């Protein structure tokens, strides 16, 4: 048994502290504004949930965006029909995503490997295309589902008179935009992290790992693996639904593009980039990708000229032109290069990078435990 650096309790405490203090330590990185922090937390939940399926069982779902989208739609409908309170919205988002995950999972889990991936992809793309076309009465098609003044909001209508303009989402009176919204997401992220931690350490989690390493052997022991797989699939779908509903809570609109395969692909990349099957990795990957998406894309040539103004003029223009390829509109180039570099040099994602750094600073022991690379080449 590998000795852990932290006990689970202290891991959770450290994690909570890091998440809750995010507005402080992200400030030097230029990321300390609530919209981005909300995205960190929300996509962290999404990736943590995805990791429960992919990291533990090895089943690569390419359709998790469908659950994200359904969570958003359910949340916005809850705002429209019942109340602007965030709790029912989150509840409905999770429940509907869970139901959809149950259906899709029940069908898709009949196959394994790439056949499973393509089945989930097909279901998600069907949901996306339907949301765009036939389901327009429910999803409002291309425009996306939005709040409007004339929404019934039955529960809210019982208690208070509708004010002027669009009401905003709230949690018992606290407006859910800006930092309060972030703290709601952050608390839920910590809860999700705790759940994921418990799953990783539980017999259920062990069972899922067993399925990953050898499903046949698990079956030979007389175990029906399907219910376990389905449970993992539904749990991870519900995490995605939660993330989707939080997207709607912080910004009450839902569009079909959230269900597109690119969104599914994004969460796959987040998880792999951070480190598949690790507790903290998916969160790191999600944060990194969102950081790139928001910060690198906002650089423009003016800012670059400022940054490199210490160089002589000719050289400055050259450097700015070159760096300009990688930031601003070209931020994806940096992201692509990052994917390539990380996967070549750090097969276990960012987490493995940290582990290597940690190992370098610790005194070397003379035991003959095989290093991960030896295991892989077997």
């Amino acid at each position, binding site marked *: 048994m590998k000795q852990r650096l932290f006990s689970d309790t202290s891991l959770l405490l450290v994690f909570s502290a890091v998440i809750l203090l995010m507005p402080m330590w992200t400030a030097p990185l230029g990321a300390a504004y609530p919209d981005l922090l909300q995205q960190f937390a929300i996509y962290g939940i999404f990736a943590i949930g995805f990791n429960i399926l*992919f990291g533990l069982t*090895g089943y*690569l779902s390419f359709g998790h965006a469908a659950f994200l989208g359904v969570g958003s739609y359910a949340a916005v409908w809850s705002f429209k029909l019942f109340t602007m309170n965030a709790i029912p919205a989150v509840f409905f988002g999770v429940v509907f995503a869970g139901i959809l995950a149950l259906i899709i999972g029940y*069908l898709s889990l*009949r*196959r*394994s*490997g*790439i*056949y499973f*991936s*393509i*089945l989930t*992809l*097909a*279901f998600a*793309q*069907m949901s996306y*295309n*339907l949301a*765009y*076309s*036939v*389901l327009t009465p429910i999803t409002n098609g291309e425009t996306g589902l939005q709040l409007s003044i004339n929404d019934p909001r039955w529960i809210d209508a019982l208690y208070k008179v509708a004010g002027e303009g669009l009401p905003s989402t709230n949690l018992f009176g606290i407006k859910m935009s800006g930092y309060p919204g972030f703290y709601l997401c952050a608390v839920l992220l910590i809860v999700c992290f705790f759940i994921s931690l418990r799953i990783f350490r539980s017999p259920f989690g062990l069972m899922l790992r067993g399925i990953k390493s050898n*499903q046949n052997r698990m079956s030979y022991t007389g175990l029906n693996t399907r219910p376990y797989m389905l449970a993992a699939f539904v749990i991870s779908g519900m995490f995605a639904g939660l993330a989707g509903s939080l997207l709607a809570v912080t910004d009450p609109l839902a569009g079909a593009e959230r269900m597109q*395969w*690119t969104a599914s*692909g994004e969460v*796959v*990349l987040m998880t*792999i*980039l951070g480190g*598949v099957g690790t507790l903290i990795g998916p969160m790191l990957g999600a944060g990194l990708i969102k950081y790139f998406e928001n910060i690198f894309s906002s650089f423009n040539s003016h800012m670059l000229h400022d940054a490199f103004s210490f160089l002589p003029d000719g050289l400055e223009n050259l450097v700015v032109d070159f760096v300009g*390829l990688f930031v601003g*509109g*070209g931020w*994806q*180039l940096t*992201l*692509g*290069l*990052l*994917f*390539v570099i*990380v*996967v*070549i040099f750090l*097969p276990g994602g960012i987490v493995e990078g940290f582990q290597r750094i940690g190992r370098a600073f610790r005194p070397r022991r003379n035991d003959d435990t095989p290093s991960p690379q030896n295991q*892989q*080449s077997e």
Partner: protein
Amino acid sequence: MDSILLQLLNGLDKGAAYALIALGLTLVFGTLGIVNFAHGAIFMLGAFCAVTFDKLIGYSTKIRDVSITAFPAYKEEAYLKIWFGDTGETIIDYAVPLAIIASIPIMLFVGYAMERGLIRHFYKRPHADQILVTFGLAIVIQEIVKATFGANPIPLAAPEILSGSANIGHWFGLGDTIVYPWWRLVYLGFSSVVIFAVFGFLQFTTYGMVVRAGMRDRETVGLLGINIERRFTIVFAIATLVAGVAGVMYTPILPPDYHMGMEFLVLSFVVVVVGGMGSLGGAVLAGFLLGIVQSFASMNEVKNIIPGIDQIIIYLVAVVILLTLPRGLMGRAGVMED
């Protein structure tokens, strides 16, 4: 009746495009065991080969316009036309078909460099790593193309003689209502030729036989003293070439932009998997099947009965096939099933 025939043609045409890309994908799957997410980007790269070629041979300069004598007028004239007269003009007109010849060495080189430089290190890595690295590569290729050519689609014209429509109905005595763009017919024919060429290469040459044996069991082939890795590298280059020329030929149908590859990629993955992992015939069959099914679903008569069916039919068919046939249409047992 007419519309059914027309949709059949449409379907064959779409199917040909899917089949060509899926063929390359499944070749790479089958030989190297690599999930190549950069395949769509290679398709796009092929299309931009045509764009570059078109720009190069159309390179022009300002010359004196002699037809206007009243005042000194100037006009843009391509160098080729100045040098070779009408022959030069014909060459410019046939830029797209000629770009195929130009793209062959480029695509082979791209494929070879990609395999030797990057993919080679990922044979034994998990599929997740392969997906991430090829996806990253695809993004890099896309962004470089975007930085070079801009984000807008660049239209290219088919040769003038092929730019109109063919009166197919007239050929078969079915009346004049069935007309179909010439270039799409050419594309269909071209795809068939390429598909048959690839199959012929694998089926009827010694080289192809060794490759097929390697697909079955690379270790045994290696033990027989054959350098199977080198052959697989060449197969990878061929797969790249197939995607590349498919991209070149597709330019007059769809003006290329930098993200056209991604759109095709997902569909071709569906096609490959529906066809069955590791089966070339399956990929081609599934490509044509899905193409035809999709065009029939987009007929108004069908749409009136089941609204929205045209949007989901491909995925619906894929789901039904995968749930009834465990390994797609013609998949082999044990390939990418875990």
